[in-house]
């Protein structure tokens, strides 16, 4: 069995950041005329590996060879001249310049220092026509065209430098179904021309639609390289998440099975959706129920939560909060209706840096009471002390600035902020990410206790184990669609994983 020679070969790549091993002994190959998908969850090292290839980072150890000759890449320029071109996730073109200008920016054809516009436009047109099958007016400004076309133009720009390797970092994240199809036709064409294409995406369907080969990373380590046709979806997911199915150990579920079907419905989403972030879905949450949201990164978990809270505006369907009215158009309205939301971005969307623990705790309650109904200082101190004690927040001094607290304690302060408003539904988006094991267990316990007292939860976590343990029912998302609801008696990590993988 003879494999063709790899175009780009990376061996034993190590990359260490202060305190973090980003890549450990990773091998990676790209073959001409192949689409190679690089897969992994958050923090697996995908972007570090790409940045090593494109010269943004230099490697600490290991070797890189192009067409069998060792090369060293220390800057994006060196990477480009070695034939590696990249199209990043966010299209970084200038929308107010013309298509031709965007393609040739920085390397315009010149004569005596003057740009030769005519030649530039002709070359741009020819390039788009021949390589991308795209017939458009290149003298129009870029914002004339859809994001999909802009993406293709970004590819055209990357191709213009005699490229052998094309890296596409999440090119489809802002495209709709048709646009993706258009992009894939181009990718197939480029593939047939002998280009080696590295494709990064979170959409499993797309991986199987376009890729020939898949490399999986986890925690900065290489899990393996597989031919796409030999790797089943469920295997892919379990390798990414790091649980072998046969090794899964089921936790005993809580003793008595709670039946929610007869309970009153607390919050109900019907046909709720937003174009480009999550397709319309139905979801009922009963009183005292913990509904888990499971899915891979980018599957639409956070987007769902934000729709529930009014942080993003839904463009379809509606949300009913039992006994508190219909529709949620702003976070403030959501809070008034009894919905609370702990964002996954604790630093940017949660804590107020400059304020103390006490002020951070009372903020949401004070906001609902308005300016003039200020919570008296004595009462504030009582509240702060009470929650610091109840949630075991460290340090105990309520006048400490929140920015100096550890992640776990910040999370507890945010929980206190919302518990104080006594919500009917508390949405927790990755509440235990990046916090230590002790605090994690405390938060999980808190969720279970409060749900027994009648509070409903929407619980989002990347850790299947956690979702499975905490949830009474699990909604599974894949590729921005709700694909399945797993009832309590069927909840198992295997079941979730199968639903995530789909297919």
């Amino acid at each position, binding site marked *: 069995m003879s494999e063709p020679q790899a175009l780009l070969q990376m061996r034993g790549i190590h990359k260490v950041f202060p305190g973090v091993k980003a890549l450990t002994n990773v091998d990676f190959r790209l073959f001409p005329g192949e689409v190679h998908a690089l897969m992994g969850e958050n923090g697996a090292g995908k972007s570090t590996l790409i940045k090593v290839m494109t010269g943004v980072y230099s490697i600490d150890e290991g070797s890189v060879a192009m067409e069998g000759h060792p090369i060293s890449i220390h800057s994006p320029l060196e990477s480009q001249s070695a034939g590696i071109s990249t199209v990043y996730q966010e299209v970084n073109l200038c929308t107010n310049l013309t298509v031709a200008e965007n393609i040739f920016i920085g390397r315009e054809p010149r004569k005596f220092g003057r740009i030769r516009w005519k030649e530039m436009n002709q070359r741009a047109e020819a390039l788009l026509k021949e390589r991308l099958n795209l017939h458009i007016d290149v003298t129009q400004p870029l914002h004339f065209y859809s994001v999909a076309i802009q993406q293709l133009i970004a590819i055209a720009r990357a191709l213009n430098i005699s490229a052998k390797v094309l890296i596409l970092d999440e090119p489809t994240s802002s495209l709709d179904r048709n646009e993706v199809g258009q992009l894939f036709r181009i990718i197939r064409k480029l593939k047939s021309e002998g280009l080696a294409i590295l494709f990064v995406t979170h959409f499993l369907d797309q991986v199987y639609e376009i890729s020939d080969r898949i490399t999986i990373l986890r925690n900065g380590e290489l899990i393996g390289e597989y031919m796409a046709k030999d790797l089943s979806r469920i295997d892919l997911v379990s390798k990414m998440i790091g649980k072998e199915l046969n090794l899964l150990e089921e936790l005993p579920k809580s003793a008595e099975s709670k039946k929610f079907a007869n309970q009153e419905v607390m919050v109900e989403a019907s046909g709720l959706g937003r174009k480009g972030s999550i397709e319309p879905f139905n979801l009922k949450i009963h009183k005292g129920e913990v509904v888990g949201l499971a899915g891979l990164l980018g599957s639409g978990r956070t987007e769902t939560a934000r729709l529930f809270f009014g942080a993003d505006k839904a463009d379809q369907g509606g949300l009913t909060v039992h006994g508190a009215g219909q529709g949620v158009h702003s976070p*403030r309205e959501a809070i008034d209706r009894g919905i609370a939301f702990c964002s996954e971005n604790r630093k940017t969307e949660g*804590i*107020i840096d*400059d*304020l103390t623990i006490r002020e951070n705790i009372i903020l949401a309650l004070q*906001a609902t009471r308005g300016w003039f109904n200020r919570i008296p200082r004595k009462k504030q101190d009582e509240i702060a002390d009470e929650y610091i004690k109840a949630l075991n927040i460290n340090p105990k001094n309520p006048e400490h600035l929140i920015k100096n607290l550890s992640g776990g304690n910040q999370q507890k302060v945010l929980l206190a*902020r919302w518990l104080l408003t006594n919500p009917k539904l508390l949405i927790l988006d990755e509440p235990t990410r990046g916090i230590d094991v002790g605090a994690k267990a405390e938060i999980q316990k808190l969720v279970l206790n409060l749900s027994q007292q009648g509070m409903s939860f929407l619980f989002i976590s990347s850790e299947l184990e956690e979702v499975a343990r905490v949830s009474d029912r699990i909604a599974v998302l894949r590729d921005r669609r709700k694909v399945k609801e797993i009832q309590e008696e069927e909840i198992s990590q295997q079941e979730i994983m199968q639903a995530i993988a789909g297919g």
Partner: protein
Amino acid sequence: MKNQLFKHHLFWPVTMLAALLLFNLIYSPDFFKIVLREGHLYGSLIDILNFGAPLILVAIGMTLVIATKGIDLSVGSIVAISGAVACMMISKGADQSSLSLVLTAIAAALGLSLVLGLWNGFLVTGAGIQPIIATLILMVAGRGIAQLVTSGQIITVSSDTYEYIGTGSLATLPFSIFVVAFMLIIASLLTRRTALGLFIESVGSNPKASLLSGVRSSVVILAVYIFCGLCAGIAGLLLSSNVSSADGNNAGLWYELDAILAVVIGGTSLNGGRFYLMGTVIGALIIQTLTTTIYMIGVPPEITLVVKAFVVLAVCLVQSEAFRQSLVRRWKTRHYPGEKEVVRRAS
């Protein structure tokens, strides 16, 4: 205890102010002398308070705006417009000293200032324009409006009633001091006795998180720009009343910059968040004292601005934690080549 004193947010501003005042003693031994004459108190310190009153007012409003991560460049123009409107209306009256006329004029001037503040606030929250650009519009246009009101002339009024605001005295002290004290109390009550202060600091520190916590940030931001406009309007009355005239071109010129400086010296960060009203007052007093000092020691007029700039630079450096620490570090790691031997032997 000693450490707490150093760490108090007013420590450095007060120290700088005291240093500046003491410096004046060298040039004028009776700098601190205050005499009672004809029922009025006179002295350099009183003058500083009196002449500094408009700046303190503007700076108080500016503090709240800056605390929301904003800035208001239009305050100087609002000062001019407010003075122009008041003087214009009074000068048209038959009896310029009539109380009702003066009160109407004041109400019109302050009403317009509120509207201008609302305009700024709307541009920032409603239209989503960056504060520095949004208020730049009124900074430029406002001078034009003031010119329009005064028809390009300097309008003078002869109204004892109106003059009282800027030159009169109450209980032996200049009336303007009471105006400032009143507004300072209002601002303190508004921000510390209601929840507005918490919301301002929260919006300024992390607008996204505040919104997600249910704070109506646009209302908060609107409120601070309106309040800032009002403060500038009152300052305009004080200034124009003090000289009994309105000058659309020069009244309140560069006040925005002095006010921003006062806020920063007072310890409020331009990044928004925590704000210190008393710090701002001290900061404004530092700037006013500096101006007085420069006149008193007879710095040639052509270099006064340079001298001012250097003192302000020094004040800011002393206030900067990073700068102080780098000085301390250098002091602690200084080298004494002669002592090296001794140290080595001792260890």
